[in-house]
């Protein structure tokens, strides 16, 4: 019987019940969705990394690793497996816009791949194992021939298998690229045997060329060159090519560094998987998901719970007489409490069930092959995993709602049955300090009425404000994120990059050869290499940008004319030293330490860097090689060269951001929809509550002769007031949240908040729009008010 009563009461208060269920659904849905997202990222990527023997550490040497070096590293106690490794970017012959990362692992227990179709990996095989996504988007099938250009040589082979590799789960050409673009860049593996064959051919050709230059006829030169090639020569060439050792080990980095130095006698650049772009970005995404999972759901859940507190209190006061009737009939307090606690339990249970479904879809919208992360991660399995703590949180929230109902009704049950039967009496009005000021008496009736109403119902007032502020935070956060990203891309495109093509240079290229190419291309250049700064890895960026092909910018995005008497720290490293102070850094692979003055800070778009001019580098005696040349020539105008490891068209780079922008647009759309729903639900619920509470006053005004329109304006004017206050509070709160989101979600870039006037206008107008629409919906009810009925009840 009481259950039937509950359902009928729910129907009577349907606006409140529905809005609380919607808020609960949104709260649980967003909470579960974002937490499932990061948990699934962790679970799916870790499983993929395990399946493909993702390396724990990568050791880099500019001079390469010999087999002897590898043996020494393998002899370290704690190193489980290691391989000499090559990963180099190559162009596909015949299409200068398409490139591949070509990988070779000598030991197929480290840094391997998952076969999706085709032949199993064969360490002596002649085939190419190609990224299935790249193959799919470029119309390449198993058995098709592929020719790659490698330092002036050609690597030819048939596609033996289509694969996915942990090392390239986030497939980026270099640190300038933010989003994978499998249309233009993929990856492939070849066997060590095939690499040997390529090196062998390269060496023979080299020897033959020398012989031809010495006057030996073609045929004889080729034959004699083959005979002249020794295993030792081949071994030395391979040693040079394998500039990387990948290993699996549970050792600490410092421990490994020490052991490597002891065994090999060299200080090598060691990058743990935590600093390797793929693992770092994947875990960064999980971390961002955690951050998102902690603030947005808290906002929604807090609003849901607060709305519940306000609404249940109002329902309980409205139900006071019924509570009295039940008590007078002989129902025990416990039974009545249980009955009304069921209201909260009912709302919580329905909201949690719907929220769980919503959460699953939110997670899938992000973490699935066709979802937002589908363009970022390239992995075979996409699941949906829930962190264990979510279950008690959801159960706790449902119980909390029941507890809120329990406490709201308990307050009405105090005293005798006769006390309970008396209608709820509102608190006595008192003049606030504000009202004692002289000008208050001069305010018009509507202002006084609305002011006093808000003062009398502070919790409703606060909740409405929270709803408006929450709505604005989501709008400013979402739209501002988009503006900031657009500004960042514009800065990258027009503020920093003034070149047409970035030409990547093969490591260890002779400076003289590089200088000739720089002159040919009429370009600027930079050199980047790893250095240790206070024990942390940073990039030393040596630049020569006299021609202005690229800019180094300050925190206000203005070009810096680099000085030659000191270095510039990027904003993320600004805490390392003040301007005028000195820093010390040591390049990896050497023993030297350099002490330089900091003369400024710069906004580094991608890397955490120390920037200096080549003049200063020469003065200090820092060794460097050219890493990249920036030229105004188009990529197809640049001839192939054995010192070019790849060419990157600026347009192509900017296009690679388009999928990133699409993800961003998706998120902005979700945030805007969430903001509008949040605004409408909270404001409508509280608006209806306010209307019900004031129905007697409104009826009185109507009886006195106030027209419905005038009363409607009175109601809407309160919404406008609250919206104005909400905007004043919400805009700075939104900007603060956005700043937090940028630092939490894009800490790898030094982004500056850039909000266009349109974002402010749209956010404010949308908030006012929501507020006015809801105000109008509530004010409309006023037309149907039954004056006679409303005035029958007494307070």
């Amino acid at each position, binding site marked *: 019987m009481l259950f039937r009563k509950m359902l009928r009461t729910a129907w009577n208060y349907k606006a409140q019940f529905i809005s609380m269920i919607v808020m609960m659904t949104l709260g649980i849905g967003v909470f579960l969705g974002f937490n499932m997202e990061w948990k699934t990222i962790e679970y799916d990527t870790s499983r993929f990394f395990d399946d493909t023997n993702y390396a724990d550490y990568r050791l880099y040497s500019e001079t390469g690793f010999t087999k002897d070096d590898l043996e020494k590293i393998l002899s370290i106690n704690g190193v489980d497996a290691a391989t000499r490794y090559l990963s180099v970017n190559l162009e596909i012959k015949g299409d200068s816009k398409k490139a591949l990362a070509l990988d070779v692992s000598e030991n197929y227990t480290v840094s391997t791949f998952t076969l999706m179709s085709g032949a199993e990996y064969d360490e002596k095989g002649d085939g190419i194992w190609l990224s299935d996504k790249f193959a799919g988007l470029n119309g390449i099938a198993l058995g098709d021939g592929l020719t790659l250009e490698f330092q002036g040589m050609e690597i030819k082979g048939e596609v033996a298998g289509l694969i996915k590799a942990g090392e390239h789960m986030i497939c980026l050409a270099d640190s300038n690229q933010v989003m994978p673009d499998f249309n233009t860049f993929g990856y492939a593996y070849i066997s060590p045997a095939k690499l040997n064959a390529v090196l062998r051919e390269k060496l023979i050709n080299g020897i033959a060329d020398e012989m031809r230059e010495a006057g030996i006829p073609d045929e004889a030169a080729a034959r004699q060159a083959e005979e002249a090639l020794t295993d030792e020569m081949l071994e030395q060439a391979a040693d040079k090519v394998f500039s990387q050792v990948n290993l699996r080990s549970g050792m600490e980095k410092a421990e490994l560094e020490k052991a490597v130095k002891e065994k090999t006698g060299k200080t090598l650049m060691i990058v743990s998987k935590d600093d390797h772009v793929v693992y770092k970005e994947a875990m960064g995404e999980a971390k961002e998901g955690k951050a998102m999972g902690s603030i947005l759901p808290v906002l929604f859940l807090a609003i849901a719970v607060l709305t519940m507190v306000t609404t249940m209190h109002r329902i309980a006061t409205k139900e006071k007489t019924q509570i009295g009737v039940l008590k007078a009939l002989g129902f025990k307090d416990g039974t009545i409490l249980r009955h009304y606690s069921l209201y909260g339990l009912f709302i919580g249970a329905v909201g949690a069930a719907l929220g769980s479904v919503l959460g699953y879809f939110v997670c899938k919208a992000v973490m699935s092959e066709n979802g937002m992360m589908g363009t970022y991660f390239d992995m075979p399995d996409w699941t949906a995993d829930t962190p264990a703590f979510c279950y008690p949180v959801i159960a706790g929230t449902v119980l909390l709602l029941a507890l809120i109902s329990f406490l709201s009704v308990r307050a009405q049950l105090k005293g005798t049955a006769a006390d309970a039967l008396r209608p709820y009496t*509102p608190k*006595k*009005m*008192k*003049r606030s300090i504000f009202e004692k000021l002289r000008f208050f008496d001069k305010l018009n*009736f509507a202002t*006084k*009425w609305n002011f*006093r*109403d808000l003062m*009398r119902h502070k919790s409703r007032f606060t909740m409405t404000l929270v709803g408006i502020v929450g709505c604005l935070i989501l709008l400013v956060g979402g739209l501002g994120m988009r503006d900031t990203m657009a500004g960042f891309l514009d800065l990258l495109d027009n503020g920093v990059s003034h070149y047409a093509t970035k030409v990547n240079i093969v490591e260890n290229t002779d400076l003289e050869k590089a200088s000739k190419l720089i002159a040919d291309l009429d370009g600027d250049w930079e050199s980047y290499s790893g250095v240790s700064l206070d024990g942390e890895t940073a990039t030393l960026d040596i630049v020569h940008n006299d021609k202005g092909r690229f800019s180094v910018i300050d925190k206000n995005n203005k070009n810096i004319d680099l000085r030659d008497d000191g270095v510039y720290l990027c904003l993320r490293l600004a805490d390392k030293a003040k301007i005028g102070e000195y820093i010390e850094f040591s390049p990896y692979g050497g023993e030297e330490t350099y002490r330089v003055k900091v003369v400024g800070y710069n906004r580094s778009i991608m890397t955490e860097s120390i920037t200096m001019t080549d003049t200063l580098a020469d003065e200090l005696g820092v060794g460097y090689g050219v890493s990249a040349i920036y030229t105004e020539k188009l990529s197809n105008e640049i001839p192939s060269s054995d010192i070019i490891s790849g060419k990157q068209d600026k347009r192509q780079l900017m296009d690679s951001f388009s999928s990133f922008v699409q993800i961003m647009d998706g998120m902005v759309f979700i945030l805007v929809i969430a903001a509008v729903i949040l605004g409408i639900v909270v404001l409508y619920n509280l608006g209806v509550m306010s209307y019900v509470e004031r129905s*007697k*006053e409104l*009826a*009185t*005004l*109507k*009886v*006195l*002769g*106030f*027209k*419905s*329109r*005038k009363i409607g304006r009175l109601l809407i004017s309160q919404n406008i007031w609250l919206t104005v206050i909400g905007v004043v509070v919400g805009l700075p709160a939104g900007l603060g949240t956005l700043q937090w989101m940028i630092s939490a979600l894009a800490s790898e870039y030094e982004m500056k908040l850039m909000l266009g006037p349109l974002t402010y206008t749209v956010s404010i107008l949308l908030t006012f729009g929501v507020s006015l629409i809801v105000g109008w919906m509530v004010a409309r009810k006023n*037309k149907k008010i039954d*004056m*006679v009925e409303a*005035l029958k*009840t*007494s*307070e």
Partner: protein
Amino acid sequence: MAIVEMKNVSRVYVTGDHEQRALDNVDLSIEKGKLVVVLGPSGAGKSTLLNILGGLDSPTDGTVKVDGYDISKLSNDELAEYRAEKVGFVFQSYNLIPTLTVFENVSLVKEISKKALDPVEMLDRVGLADHMKKFPSGLSGGEQQRVSIARALAKNPDILLCDEPTGALDSETGVVVLKVLLNMARSYGKTIIIVTHNQNIAKIADVVIRVKNGRIRSCETQDAPAAVEEVEW
């Protein structure tokens, strides 16, 4: 001269299959400046009669003319104007706005009536000049009802409609309120219609109308009505 004329007025409420005739073919004429008391038991139709006269409700059939205007066919906005200019209400439960002070409750009528009287003068006349800055919750029942009378008369209406104005008050306070009501209304030359089930109040009326089952059973004119001080219950 008749200020109120009702002809064949019926008000039927339909709830599901059930039909209730709250007023059944009522004919009524009330002279200007008179004090009329409508008597009847609960459910007799007296409040419906008052609500129709006050423009809070519309008749199902018949015509209602107040000061020559037919109010039975007015739109919602026209009815609101009618309430603002022609009638003042005094209710049993006072119906003051709890968030407005005594002065503001009376001043409220200036928002809607072009011929509103001075609120301070009105409050002075009902003896509440010293309570103007208080909120209704700080007043006694009798004082609240006096504010309600001041508000009703501040609109300067032609007719004052009172629904059980002393229903929530004890005899002594009720008499004080009635006295204020009559003195004020008479000094401003208003027609007063009081709806009540209290037979004792009928003694002070110029005209007593008895209502039962939605019909007017009698309409008596009293040539020598009693003074308010003589009333007690």
